[in-house]
């Protein structure tokens, strides 16, 4: 015990002056061994396919190459040239970016609103809100898609029934998925409905960490609700806010299952394709592996471009901590 007390003066490293702490630590293999299982899985499951996919995007690779009747030939940027000179690709890119922007912003705004509500309402109301968010969040993707499709059903859907009841007679037997605009409206409603719970719970968790005293002090000093929100709440939950925003952009840009399902339920494929389904159509339905790989690379670059700012700020926080 006495020994321990005298030791507190000096950090343990100084007890061994022969080995500088950094060198001593660097030589230990244990921390690197801990990374091996994760790294090996990532290399096997994602790294290797990614390398192949990049290579394929520079190759002539279709059905003949797949079955081995022809060798894949290197064709440089031909796949990229052909997709980027195709107006369809640009339409798909623009549509995807707009969809991602609208869905992600709506999700963030509503999610933030719900998180703030959870903080300021009575316990009973908060519990009701939390349970219903939890139920929506936990409902498996395909089950939600099925029930939403049923809600918007042309003839028997509750949405049409309700719209007719409140006076919009033109919605009698209205087919939501046949028109690209209402198709994306339905898709957006579904995506937002599914993603709000995650955002709301994450932000609510972050909000519980905002110091109550600071807020009260600001209120006493005459700061308005908006001022308190902008100058105290937002800065203190910024790390969570930026990671959640980043995830929403990434997820909404790659939205696939929702679009694919709604297309299957009656959407016109050519007018409602987003990057994910476009890729699927080229790669699986038409077996244009080379071209599809080039689309995949464009999609990856687009994601990196759109999220660059967030990644940089996350890394800056990383270095600061």
């Amino acid at each position, binding site marked *: 015990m006495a020994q*321990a007390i005298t030791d507190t003066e000096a950090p343990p490293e100084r007890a061994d002056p022969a080995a500088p702490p950094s060198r001593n*630590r*660097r030589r230990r293999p*244990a*921390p690197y061994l*801990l990374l091996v299982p*994760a790294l090996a*899985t990532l290399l*096997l*499951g*994602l790294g290797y*396919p990614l390398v*192949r*996919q990049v290579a*394929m995007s520079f190759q002539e690779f279709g059905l003949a190459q797949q079955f081995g009747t022809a060798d894949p030939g290197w064709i440089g940027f031909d796949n990229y040239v052909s997709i980027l000179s195709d107006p369809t690709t640009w339409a798909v890119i623009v549509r995807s970016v707009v969809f991602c922007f609208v869905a992600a912003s709506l999700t963030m705004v509503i999610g933030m609103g719900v998180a703030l509500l959870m903080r300021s*309402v*009575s316990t*009973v109301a908060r519990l009701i*809100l939390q*349970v*219903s*968010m*939890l*139920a*929506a*969040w*936990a*409902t*498996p993707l*395909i089950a*939600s898609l*099925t*029930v939403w499709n*049923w*809600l918007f059903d042309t003839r028997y859907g509750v949405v049409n029934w309700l719209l007719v009841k409140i006076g919009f007679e033109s919605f009698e037997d209205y087919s939501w998925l046949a028109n690209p605009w209402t198709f994306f409206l339905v898709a957006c409603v579904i995506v937002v*409905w599914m993603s709000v*719970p995650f955002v709301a*719970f994450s932000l609510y968790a972050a909000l*519980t*960490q905002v110091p109550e005293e600071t807020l009260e002090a600001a209120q006493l000093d005459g700061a308005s609700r908006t001022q308190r929100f902008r100058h105290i709440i937002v800065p203190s939950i910024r790390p*969570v806010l930026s990671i959640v925003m980043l995830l929403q952009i990434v997820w909404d*840009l*790659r939205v*696939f*299952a929702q679009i694919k*399902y709604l297309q*299957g339920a*009656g959407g016109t494929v050519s007018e409602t394709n987003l990057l*994910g389904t476009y890729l699927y159509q080229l790669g*699986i339905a038409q077996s244009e592996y080379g071209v*599809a*790989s080039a689309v*995949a*690379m464009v*999609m*990856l670059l687009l994601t990196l471009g759109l999220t660059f700012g967030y990644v940089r700020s996350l*890394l800056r*926080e*990383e270095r600061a*901590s």
Partner: protein
Amino acid sequence: MTTPTTRTRRPRTGRTLLSTLAIVIAAVWAFPVYWMVNSSFQTLGRLRSPDPAWLPFGGDTSPDAYGRVADASFWDAMQLSLTVTLLAVGSGLVFAFLAALAISRFRLRGKTSFIVVILVVQMIPAEALFISQYKMLSGWGLFNTVAGLTLLYLAMILPFTIWMLRGFVAGVPAELEEAAMVDGCSRFRAFFTITFPLLAPGLVASGVYGFLQCWNEITLATVVMDPANQTIPLWLQGMTTVSNQAIDWPAVMAGATLVAIPVIGLFMFVQNKMTSGMVSGAVKG
């Protein structure tokens, strides 16, 4: 503006208004889930009547649809999904935990690059890789196998799991463990009695995310599994794409409910741990 009367009255009416708003939002969010369960108890004729049937009991309702869907193919799909998901989430948690330990407890060369890799890997759209993943699995004879699908799911959930767990591990001060070791605990025992319980909420929260991701995954399953060997999402999708006229909606909704109930149950069960997990994760960001 700030006369005493308004100051005392405004919060109370404001709070009532906000609580009402909260309940309205709750109703909107819960409605589709309710509608799924409700529709599963109706007969097809009742579902096609001009006015919706609002309640899952009374006159024309029956649980027959559940009998129609819970056949052998449902149980096979359930078993496959559970096997793959539990294998992927279980090994995912172990691998991610080790990696999180390495990056938050040790000085590593290339740590920042590893974190960048973890972030960027999450941005690779799964749809951008399935072609080469499919070719890779068929090349290794892993096409249509539990091992193949598990490998892909494991790689899919690892980056986010590592990212989440690293916040939790960093949130438990190493000094706690060192203090226990000073008191005579072995490093191993100190870890399992002091650090591990503090990490439990983090493990639960990341495990639930991983579980949801795997349970919902449909693209990779379509690509690398044989149509005769379906996971639960594929099984459910199969029910709605038979042919537009012949959809047995009560059965579809019963199927959706059967798929949803275990997951909603799991969520409600771990809800407390998850929220506290998210809070401690939020501290570290």
